[in-house]
């Protein structure tokens, strides 16, 4: 490969300034604008897992749907290995579809109850007819997929309601794998599952990644799961990514007060890991129909100052010596660095009470 030493490993997906506005009808007053995505930047490297964290209504599902081309963005670009999928038509688009697939949250709603597991998993082949020619080839691939996700070959004839939640999610994963994609978007893949089953599915996803080298975008609100499965994390709040960086950086030394409060608020099983003080945010997510000016988090932030309502914060980064700064002047923080959009970033984890008391 012709990569210069300074270049990062190949990006499978690059998203630049992606925005999406929905028009919500508000009765006689006409329609209101709902900015679901507001200037999203992110990238996913080959074989890595990017976590997308945020509370309901933060736009993470809209982002997933936009990346899957289920929604069309207003502005911004999506580059999948240099290609813009929204510019593709016909056959090229179909080829692109093979490379990005999705696993949905609800293992009950995402499978058509009138089809058998085998029909569901091989459904993509009906559209991509040239991929596996003939029944024998299709059945061979079906058995391969069933084996890959830990289901038996005889399961193909059963209908979804004969399976448990975890097994259904395995069917959903097998369907996403059917076209041999490079990137799978996992939208809350385990949040509907029981804890003991959740671990099985997480292990399966991990094994598949190691076996197939596939990249994941892992969307979840469960921080302990995200911490376990992701390489890098992006935290979303009201349609913006307010902090991103490697999982360790973001979890152990969050820069943004919102991230710090998320980390702090999530209950910990191990008493030794509980924060010394717990940040309990007041209020709830403001309506995305009427987001706060300046920094979007200021209405709930304990560090908010007058400047937060006036100016949208720049990206701040933390350098190796632990100092928080704006990064290289004029260029900003480098790609992949730990950055947060905040006027007054959390300088030290102990400031937010994140260091365990013991």
């Amino acid at each position, binding site marked *: 490969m012709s990569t210069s030493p300074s270049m990062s490993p190949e990006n499978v997906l690059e998203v630049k300034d992606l925005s999406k506005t929905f028009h919500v009808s508000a009765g006689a007053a006409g329609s209101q604008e709902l900015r679901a995505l507001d200037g999203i930047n992110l990238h996913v490297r080959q074989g890595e897992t990017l976590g997308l964290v945020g509370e309901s209504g933060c736009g993470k599902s809209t982002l997933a749907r936009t990346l*899957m081309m289920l929604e069309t963005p207003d502005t911004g670009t999506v580059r999948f290995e240099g290609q813009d999928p929204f510019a593709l038509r016909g056959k090229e688009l179909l080829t692109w579809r093979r490379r990005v*697939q999705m696993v949905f*949250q609800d293992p009950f709603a995402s*499978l058509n109850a009138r089809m058998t597991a085998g029909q569901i998993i091989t*459904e993509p082949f009906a559209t991509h007819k040239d991929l596996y020619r003939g029944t024998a080839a299709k059945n061979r691939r079906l058995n391969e997929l069933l084996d890959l996700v830990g289901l038996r070959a005889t399961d193909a004839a059963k209908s979804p309601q004969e399976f448990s939640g975890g097994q259904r999610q395995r069917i959903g994963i097998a369907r996403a794998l059917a076209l041999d994609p490079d990137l799978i978007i996992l939208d809350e893949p385990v949040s509907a599952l029981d804890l003991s089953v959740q671990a099985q599915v997480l292990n399966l996803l991990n094994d598949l990644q190691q076996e197939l080298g596939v990249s994941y975008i892992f969307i979840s609100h469960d921080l302990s799961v995200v911490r376990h499965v992701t390489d890098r994390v992006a935290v979303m709040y009201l349609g913006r990514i307010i902090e991103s960086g490697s999982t360790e950086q973001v979890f152990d030394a969050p820069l943004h007060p919102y991230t710090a409060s998320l980390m702090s608020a999530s209950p910990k099983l191990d008493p030794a890991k509980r924060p010394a003080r717990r940040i309990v945010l007041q209020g709830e997510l403001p309506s995305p129909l009427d987001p706060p000016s300046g920094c979007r988090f200021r209405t709930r932030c304990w560090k908010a100052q007058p400047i937060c309502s006036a100016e949208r914060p720049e990206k701040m980064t933390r350098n190796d010596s632990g100092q928080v700064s704006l990064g290289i002047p004029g260029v900003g923080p480098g790609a992949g660095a730990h950055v947060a959009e905040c006027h007054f970033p959390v300088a030290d984890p102990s400031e937010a009470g994140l260091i365990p008391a013991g």
Partner: protein
Amino acid sequence: MTQIQDQPVPGKTVKTSVAQRLGRPSMLSMLLRDKFATVAAVILGFVLLTAAFGPSLMGELATNQDLMFMNKAPFDPANGWAYFLGSDSLGRSMLARMVVATQTTLLVAVPAVLVALFLGSLWGVWAGYHRGRRENISMRLADIIMSFPSLLLAVVVLFVFSPSAANIVLILAITRIPIYMRTARAESAELQSRTFVDAARTFGTKPNSIIVRHVIPVVTPTLLTLATLEFCFVMLAESSLSFLGIGIQPPDVSWGLMVAQGRQYLQTAWWLSILPGLAIVITAVAANVLAAWMRIATDPAQRWRLTLDKQAKKDLTAVIKDAK
């Protein structure tokens, strides 16, 4: 024969045979378990057989007039089997008339229902799946058809053109299309936002394929149930047209026409309209019961209910509550 069956049929997947081995209940055994559905199926079978072979068996009997023998009450064995259901104002055998009318009625009602079902459903499913302008225009069109008095439309059309059976079928079908369209649109609009439809979109499946694979199988049972209700309505609508003199024309006879003609004798000879009316109701109810059964039998998530025994069925309603 057996030899052919033993060989795997090319093109057919292995899956079907696996499913059979797993012992999915056959349609017939499920039908026999549901007493109401069985009775309904027998009634409908009888009606269909009557329509097919009845008129030729009755021969001249349906048209033979006997003015001396008019308005005889039914169920009087003294009158002989031909007049078991009584006679009409011209002394014709009610039984023979009803049998002949069965054929005419079904020949009008069934095609009218089927045409409206087919066109209305496809249109509604298409409009509901695509949403947006296509949906809006379609629904406004439907509203226009609905708000226009269908009887008036029928009168105009049938007056201009001849009141032939084909025209009656056509006019009844057109005026009933919006009924199916609305239901199909509503269900389809809901379905197109389901996750499994989204999943199909992410493979790049074309809208028409998604409609065929995911939408139509789900909406069909609902629409079939609706169609059986409509069957009843169409029979009555046809009788209204007959009443106005633009429906089925004598000497042809339909159940609706018999109801209409018997109305003036309601006080003196009730059987003239009640008996054909009963025929309409019984046929419609039977069709409805069978449709309700079919709705469950074709839904894999509900099919198990039909495999239950008596005791289990007793608890069923309570269990449904519990499942919530």
